[in-house]
């Protein structure tokens, strides 16, 4: 293997073909994540992506980095374990809105408040796609799905507000239909030291006939273009988090710089892969129990 190979986007590709529906928002996310990693010069073997279960999770097979395709809703704990064990790794979590706002919402809250330096990307298509079109905890009120034939009667989870109130140190939203904004946002998230959360609005062209590209395009606007918006101000972020309807803000809602969990515990594990090491000396420990 050449030592000073120039990194190419292809280096992040496996020889497996994508299986997503043509037009799926996942393509843009996948492509732009690779582009962001390339521009930030992360070598594939330095990166771990942990996936949940859902259409996004099938991306495991197409992306050439160390990967962990975990259980539905449980990608965040796996990723935190990886990062705590080896701080040098770039750890990214990919999961859908069912994964992170439904079955795994508890882990989401606790991951936010720990501020472990990982990036969590929520593929937010507001529908259960892989199981062919049931309601999601992100489905808008009134939305008709297989399991809400009379229209969704529950209020959706608000992942931005949830991340903010759980003290995530980086909270952003982007849209798969605005690829450059998507890439820039991912780059900011990857460069943030601490827990970064990116909610990606992503049309499911097969099962979500409500939140379409056109629907989003008519509503989204960029926080970056709001001259009076300051992403360092938590209170304005909280106000913006609840803006959903005629207007939908995308961009960095909030960012703050705080010490990470791993900085605070400050433990570097010995991941020695050599076999046959002597057992750890426990004499000191045994003293307390000596009769």
């Amino acid at each position: 293997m050449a030592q000073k190979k120039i990194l190419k986007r292809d280096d992040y590709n496996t020889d497996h073909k994508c299986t997503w529906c043509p037009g799926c928002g996942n393509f843009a996310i996948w492509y732009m994540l690779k582009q962001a990693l390339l521009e930030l010069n992360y070598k594939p073997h330095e990166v771990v992506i942990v996936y949940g279960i859902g259409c996004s999770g099938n991306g495991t097979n197409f992306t050439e980095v160390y990967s962990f395709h975990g259980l539905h809703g449980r990608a965040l704990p796996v990723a935190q374990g990886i990062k705590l064990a080896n701080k040098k790794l770039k750890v990214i979590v990919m999961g859908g809105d069912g994964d992170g706002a439904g079955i795994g919402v508890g882990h989401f809250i606790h991951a936010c408040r720990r501020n472990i330096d990982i990036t969590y990307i929520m593929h937010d298509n507001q529908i259960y796609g892989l199981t062919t079109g049931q309601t999601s905890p992100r489905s808008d009120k009134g939305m008709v799905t297989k399991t809400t034939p009379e229209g969704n009667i529950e209020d959706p989870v608000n992942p931005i507000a949830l991340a903010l109130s759980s003290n995530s140190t980086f909270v952003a939203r982007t849209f798969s239909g605005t690829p450059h904004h998507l890439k820039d946002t991912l780059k900011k998230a990857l460069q943030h030291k601490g827990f970064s959360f990116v909610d990606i609005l992503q049309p499911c062209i097969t099962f979500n006939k409500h939140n379409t590209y056109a629907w989003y395009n008519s509503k989204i606007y960029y926080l970056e273009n709001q001259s009076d918006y300051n992403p360092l101000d938590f209170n304005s972020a909280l106000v913006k988090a609840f803006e959903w309807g005629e207007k939908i803000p995308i961009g960095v809602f909030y960012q703050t710089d705080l010490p990470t969990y791993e900085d605070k515990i400050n433990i570097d594990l010995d991941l020695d892969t050599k076999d046959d090491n002597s057992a750890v000396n426990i004499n000191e420990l045994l003293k307390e129990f000596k009769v």
Partner: protein
Amino acid sequence: MGLFVSKPKNKPNSLSKTLVFGGEAGEGIKSAGKIVSKTLLNLGLEVFLYDEYPSLIRGGHNAVFITYSEYPVYSVNKEIDLLVCLDKTTFELHKQNLGLESVVIYDHEDFLIYDDDLRNLPCEIVDIPIKQIIKKNGLPNIIRNTLYVSSTMNILGIEKKVLEANVTNTLSKKPDLLEQNIKAIGLAYTASSEYKSIRKIPQKIGSSDKKSYFMTGNQAISIGAIQSGIGFYAAYPMTPASTILDFLTANFRKYNYIVKQTEDEIAAINMAIGASYAGARSMVGTSGGGFSLMVEALGLAAITETPLVIVLAQRPGPATGLPTWTGQGDLLFALHAAQDEFPRVVLCPTDHEEAMELAFKAFNIADKFQVPVIILSDKFLSESQAKFSLKKSKKKIERGLMISSRALMRLDKFERYASTPNGISPRSIPGQEGGIFIANSDESDSRGFSEESAENRIAKVKKRFAKLPSLKKELPDLNVYGDIRSKICIITWGSTKGAVLEATRRLHNTGISLKILALNYIEPFPSEEVSKFLSSSKHVLLIEGNYTSQLGQLIKIHTGHDIKNKLLKYDGRPIFPNEVVDKVLEII
């Protein structure tokens, strides 16, 4: 592997004594137990301590059982030789276990004892005016337990200065408290002077120069894990596993590992799997309820072939069950948890020393075979304290097949899940160049890519199970105790061994010998060894802490032996030696 005969360490004619301290939760029963056991240990006696307490912080009944002898003790007795009652409930709950020579210590100002209460047993009733002593000397009420402890020590013929030295040692950092305690010791010794030495403790015969230790099963498990180079421990507090979390947390800086208290048990096991995937030796600890939440991820560790150690400290269920009591009802659950089939190891240490030993070994097995290893304990083993010494042995940390970065550079393409004759394939860890792979919860091919073909599925299932023959060789030795020629045999598993060994000693006194097989692992099941053991016996007795004889079911499946004689207990209390004795006498 194999059956080994263990020579009995004890002289058969010795009998142990049991002292019970009882009172309301919050009255210092645990600390009374600590000081009494420490004093007895210092005098060279063998001690076994077991706590009973409700799931409450204050109020409710607490009791500490201390069984002692000049010979090794393996369990606590049900018969009480000395009952110390800090309240009436203690007397009411335990009086039926008093015997001919028993002593009851109480204060008549707390309650009154009538002849009827004692079923006309000629017990010695020791009435110490504890309340009066407190009032007269202006002592705080928390000193009560010291007054009871001191009176008890006097009855046992333990000199005042021995207790004083012990208390001074314990309270050296709290001078005010120490002064009060020393004063209380003096007062209690005076008040109980007429009962001095009425139940003198046995004089220790001979001296042991072996280093011995006194600790709980959970402490032993934790120390074994540290010795094995644990890198990551994750848990959600749950009795009776919480003290592993506490102990490991107290020592993480010194031994450089990470402890994470998580939001729930699902997070705990998934984090531990993540840390293990990244190369750290990882463990989780819980009880049945938490293990129920971990079940799906147990399968995740199995299909991704990520090494993992799981401590399952049993308590009676289902659901919340009896949170602070003991039982062995999770055996089949541990064996079958998670969907579909995969190889796993279930170890069940039979005593404290073995708990340390097997915790160490569990990590080696997990790493070498890339399988989940469950250490099945229970409240009785996890929270009781026993004295034991450690065999000198050179222990090695064996990480199994972990591929070096240099070897990876030489490879054209690394196949993490390459098929091999023994099913074990070398693993890389993230960060290693050339070692990229997918740990996939989907069935996958040799590099971890999702693959649903029938051929691949068959190959992968076979690959995982191909580990079994070599894995079996790594399992701990099975010990046969007692008289190998005996035609009466007892088969049991895990912590129940202690009561059986005590019973063996008692039966030996009546001329009955037993041979005992106490399984210290259940999966993969030692069919041959169990079959051989059972075939040579006329009377077979199965003993375990559940209703449906779960080990009995396994024995029937694996060996065809259908054991008719059973001692099954599922009341939350440990199996006591006298119950074993009675059952043996019933079947022969």
